[in-house]
């Protein structure tokens, strides 16, 4: 079997911690040909570490190569619209990191460009490929809890998550020392960075579209200028509710975890990470569950399934395992939460559709 050839655009945090390791794991099926990053040192280091034969600081040069079957876009969301559209027009299939884009207009343009070019597009909502959520979804499909009424999630991340877990970090700082993720010119905060996961899962488990979102948000980190604390309630058309509290800046050593509870007419599903960690470390400062994030990233192989599933769809010319429309709708929920928290009112999804065309 000929290996599919991939180019990775953006070699920051998510590429280094998840996508590139997954591609390396799949080396018998996928060959990493080239990487691109606006930061020369970062691009060169990633290429050397993961065995790419070429690296670029201009992603257009990567797209100009005719020996690349698909690109994996791992840049910040505000760049996705431009880069994914360019990749599609260059005839490359595109796997894109979540969130899909920074605006619905960009998301719609990405879908449109992929269709026009006849290439496949998938957005990497990694939790759809994670065992615990797949089990939950399967239980719902099998009718184990009846009709889903309430999806309740909390996401907790310590400020030290990457350093404590010895994971690489590489947030790009387009202006001085301020990483893009906390800069208001480039990021809309936790609603897109993290909560898009919870919103996508809620929509997946409920099995219906949302009607409205109400959110409260705030900035808790002295280093951030965008909200890094978010609590929201989603009202779905079928009467179900999705709700979550997401915070990124908890004290060092607080365990990274995602609590999931789903209540239905005939039962409930509970998956709370701290109680299910395969490893606990008690120390002076309290308890640490250092395996949890690794569980999501590596042991569980969610990103291997994600990248491998997309590659399989290319090889067999079948639809990708996740339709871009799902990612687009998760983005719509995130943007509704942003607007709700800014304007102090409930935001209907229909408001976001004005002036935009469903493709």
């Amino acid at each position: 079997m000929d290996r599919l050839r991939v180019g990775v655009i953006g070699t920051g945090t998510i590429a280094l911690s998840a996508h590139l390791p997954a591609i390396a794991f799949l080396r018998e099926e996928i060959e990493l040909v080239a990487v691109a990053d606006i930061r020369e040192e970062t691009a060169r280091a990633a290429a050397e570490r993961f065995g790419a034969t070429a690296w670029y600081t201009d992603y257009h040069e990567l797209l100009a190569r005719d020996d690349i079957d698909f690109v994996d876009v791992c840049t910040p969301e505000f760049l996705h619209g431009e880069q994914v559209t360019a990749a599609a027009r260059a005839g490359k299939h595109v796997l894109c990191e979540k969130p899909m884009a920074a605006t619905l207009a960009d998301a719609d343009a990405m879908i449109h460009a992929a269709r026009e070019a006849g290439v496949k597009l998938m957005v990497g909502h990694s939790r759809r490929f994670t065992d615990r959520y797949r089990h939950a979804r399967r239980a719902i499909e099998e009718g184990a809890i009846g009709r889903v009424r309430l999806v309740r999630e909390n996401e907790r991340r310590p400020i030290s998550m990457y350093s404590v877990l010895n994971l690489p970090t590489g947030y790009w700082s387009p202006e001085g020392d301020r990483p893009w993720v906390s800069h208001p010119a480039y990021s809309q905060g936790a609603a897109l960075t993290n909560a898009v996961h919870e919103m996508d899962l809620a929509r997946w488990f409920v099995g219906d579209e949302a009607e409205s979102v109400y959110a409260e948000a705030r900035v808790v980190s002295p280093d951030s200028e965008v909200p890094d604390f978010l609590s929201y309630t989603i009202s779905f058309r079928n009467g179900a509710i999705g709700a979550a509290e997401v915070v990124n800046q908890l004290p060092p050593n607080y365990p990274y975890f995602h609590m999931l509870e789903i209540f239905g007419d005939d039962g409930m599903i509970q998956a709370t990470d701290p109680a299910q960690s395969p490893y606990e470390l008690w120390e002076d400062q309290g308890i640490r569950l250092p395996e949890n994030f690794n569980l999501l990233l590596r042991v569980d192989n969610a990103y291997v399934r994600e990248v491998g599933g997309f590659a399989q769809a290319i090889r067999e010319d079948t639809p990708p395992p996740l339709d871009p429309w799902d990612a687009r709708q998760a983005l719509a929920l995130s943007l509704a939460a942003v607007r709700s928290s800014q304007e102090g009112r409930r935001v209907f999804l229909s408001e976001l559709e004005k002036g935009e065309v469903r493709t």
Partner: protein
Amino acid sequence: VTAITRLTIAGDTDLARDVYRYAIGNALAERVSVRLSPQEFETTDEVVISVAAGEDLPEFAAAAVAAGCRLATLPIADLPGELEAAAESGQLRQFSPHFGRPVVRRLLADARDGRVGRPYGLYVAHRLPRSSAGIFAGGVSGLVALALEVIDSPPVRVQATHASYDGSGESWLLLLRFDGDTIATLECSAVLPPGGPESGNLLVELTGSDAVLRAEPSRQAVRVTGAEGRQIARDWAPNPAGPLLQHALAVLERPAPLPQARIVDVLRAARESAGSGEPVSLMS
């Protein structure tokens, strides 16, 4: 106790209702040597303990006592004028039944001691059996009372979402923003299936810059797994009546007790918000 010349008990906690029915009311009555009228309890779903003093204490007016006597049959959302007046003048005292749990009181004490540093948010989830009725009065009020004691700043606005599940339970979700930007996420849902814990469960989590305080009192239980599935057969936590009484008296004896009118204000605003879906300002 000696400072209180008249005690009116109206309503009871729904914590493990089957096990502790009237336990708090009985404990209060016994503590201050008053006769309890169980018939009043039979007609109420309220989760309010009203402690009101007689006319000889300047801070409590006779109107509050009279209103408190009738509290057992009054839905919170439809307060009569005199009770509203009592609440707004600070004469009505309400306490979250969850402070009957030592671990929740410990969380409150640590919060007051500033252990979390800058508070970020408060998350409280109270889950009740699907068959539970009247969870706004019986559950939401207790969460609001808890939040207003734990977060030491005035609430600014509240948004509430209510969903009823066609006879399969209901949920109330409140997002409560405080002055200083602390955000409380309060959820009370009657969603536990028959195989779930019979007495419900409670999770309280206060996040902040220096620490996270997490209390889960309902984990203090004996879990029995039988043919019908898992359930909590016996909650072996200490009877909450005594600790709650101590808490209530401690609050009453504070020089500047919690402005209780806020509880009524928040509950009233939450009802209004649930009707419109929009947040309601609590700034006067």
